[in-house]
C-alpha cells in the first residue's frame, strides 16, 4: 500500500470521530481535523481546538488514537495546531446541515478583522437569528454563552421556544 493510499485510509477513519460536545457532528464536519500525513508506518493526525479551554480536545485525541489503533495503525501521532486559530467558517456545509437538524442555528460568516482595536458590540446591534423551529425572525438573545463557550442562548418570541446558536468566531 502506498503512503498516499494509507493516508487516505487514516483520514477516512479520523473523519468518523465525533465531537463529544456536539456528537451529531464529526471532527471533519467542524473543521477540527486539519491534516493527515503518513511516512512509512508513522501516521500524523493534526487537530486544532475550537476554544482554548475546550475539554473535548483530549477526548478527541484519545478517540482518534483508539479508532486508528483499532484499524491496525499502531504508530499514530496526534499533533495540536494552534495557528491558524479555528474559525467557525471551517464548519462544512454538511456540518451546518447537521447543526440545523439538531436544532442549533449554524453560525454566520465570521467578521473580517479590520485594522485598529477590536470593535465593541453593544446590545441591540446583534444581527437577526431566525428560530430553527418556526423560522420567525422575532428572537432575542438570552445569553452570549450557552451550554458551551461556542454556543449562545436565544429564545423565539413567536413560538416561545428556546434554542441555541453556534457563535461565529
Amino acid at each position, binding site marked *: 500500500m502506498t503512503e498516499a493510499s494509507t493516508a487516505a485510509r487514516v483520514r477516512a477513519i479520523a473523519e468518523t470521530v*465525533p465531537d*463529544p460536545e456536539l*456528537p451529531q457532528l464529526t471532527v471533519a464536519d467542524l473543521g477540527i481535523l486539519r491534516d493527515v500525513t503518513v511516512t512509512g508506518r508513522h501516521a500524523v493526525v*493534526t487537530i486544532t*481546538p475550537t*476554544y*482554548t*479551554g*475546550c*475539554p473535548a480536545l*483530549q*477526548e478527541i*485525541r*484519545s*478517540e482518534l*488514537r*483508539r479508532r486508528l489503533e483499532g484499524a491496525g495503525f499502531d504508530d499514530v*501521532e*496526534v*499533533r*495540536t*495546531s*494552534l*495557528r*491558524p*486559530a*479555528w474559525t467557525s467558517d471551517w464548519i462544512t456545509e454538511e456540518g451546518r446541515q447537521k447543526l440545523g437538524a439538531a436544532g442549533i442555528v449554524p453560525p454566520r460568516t465570521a467578521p473580517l478583522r479590520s485594522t485598529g*482595536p*477590536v470593535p*465593541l*458590540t*453593544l*446590545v441591540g446591534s446583534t444581527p437577526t437569528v431566525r428560530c430553527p423551529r418556526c423560522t420567525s425572525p422575532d428572537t432575542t438573545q*438570552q*445569553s*452570549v*454563552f*450557552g*451550554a*458551551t*463557550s461556542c454556543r449562545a*442562548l436565544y429564545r423565539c418570541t413567536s413560538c416561545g421556544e428556546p434554542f441555541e446558536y453556534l*457563535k461565529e*468566531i
Partner: protein
Amino acid sequence: MDTYDAYQAITDVAEDQRWAFGAGFDDPLSGVDTTIPDGVVGADLGAYCEMLGDDALLVSHRLQQWVAHAPELEEEAALANIALDLLGQARFLLARAGTVDGSGRTEDDYAFQRGAAQFRHVRLVELVDSDFGVAMARLLVFSTWRLAVLDRLRASRDPVLAAIADKGVKEVTYHREYAAQWVIRLGDGTELSHRRVQAGLDQIAPFVGELFTDSDVETRLAAVGVGVRPSETRAEFDAVLDTVLSAATLRCPAWSAPGGATRTAGDRDTLRRLLVELQSVARAHPGATW
C-alpha cells in the same frame, strides 16, 4: 464503536482521556513546536508566560466561585464558560513557561505547587467579588485590558505566544461583550443596580493603575518583539470604558495612577484564601491520579 458512547467515555479509565488535576492530561502543548526564538532570554519568556497565565488562572477561579451563586442559571453557565476559556489560556501559558524557563515544571506545578509569594499576577485578579456588581465591573476592566494586550501579542516573535493570543482575542472579545452588556444593564437599570455596579467600579479603581505599569520583564520582551508593554494599551482601554460607562450612565471612577511596584505577589489574606481553595485537593493528595 459506531455511535459515540458517552457513558463509556466517562467511565473508561484507559490511557489519558481525563482532563483535570491528576488526570494525566498535563501537556496541552502536545505536538506544538516549542523552540525559543533567537535573542530571547528563556527566564524572561517564562516569567512573562507566568504573568499572563496567572492573571487568567486567578480570574478563572473567581468566576468559578460564582457557579451555584449567580442570579440566574444562564449567568452561571456564562460565567463558567468564560472561566473555562481563561483556564484554557492559563494552561497553555503555564505549560509554555515550563518549556522555556529551564525548570521543566508542568502546568500543574505552577498552579498547585507555588506559594502565594511566587505568583506573578496583577492584584485586580485576586480581589473578592462577592457582589455581582463587583464581578461585572472587574470582568469588564480585566477583559478590556487583556483583549488589548492579546491583540498586540498576536504579532509576537514567539510563535506559541502569538498562537495563544490569536485564539485568546476571539474568546476575550466575547467576554468583554458579556461584561459590557451587564454593566450597561445594571448601570442603566434600577437605582439599586446602578448603585451596586458603581460601587463595584469604585472598589476596583485603586488596582487599575497596576494594569498599565510596565514591569522590567515586559519592557525587555517588548524590546525584542516578543512581549507587549501594557502602558501602550491605555488609550484603547480608556476609549472602551468611556463608551460603556456613558451608555450605562455610570461615573468613570478615578483609576489609580500607573507606576511603582507591579505584580508583587505576597502573603495577603485574599490571595492566601484563594490559593488554599485552588490548591487544596492537589496539596492533600500529591501526585494523585484518578
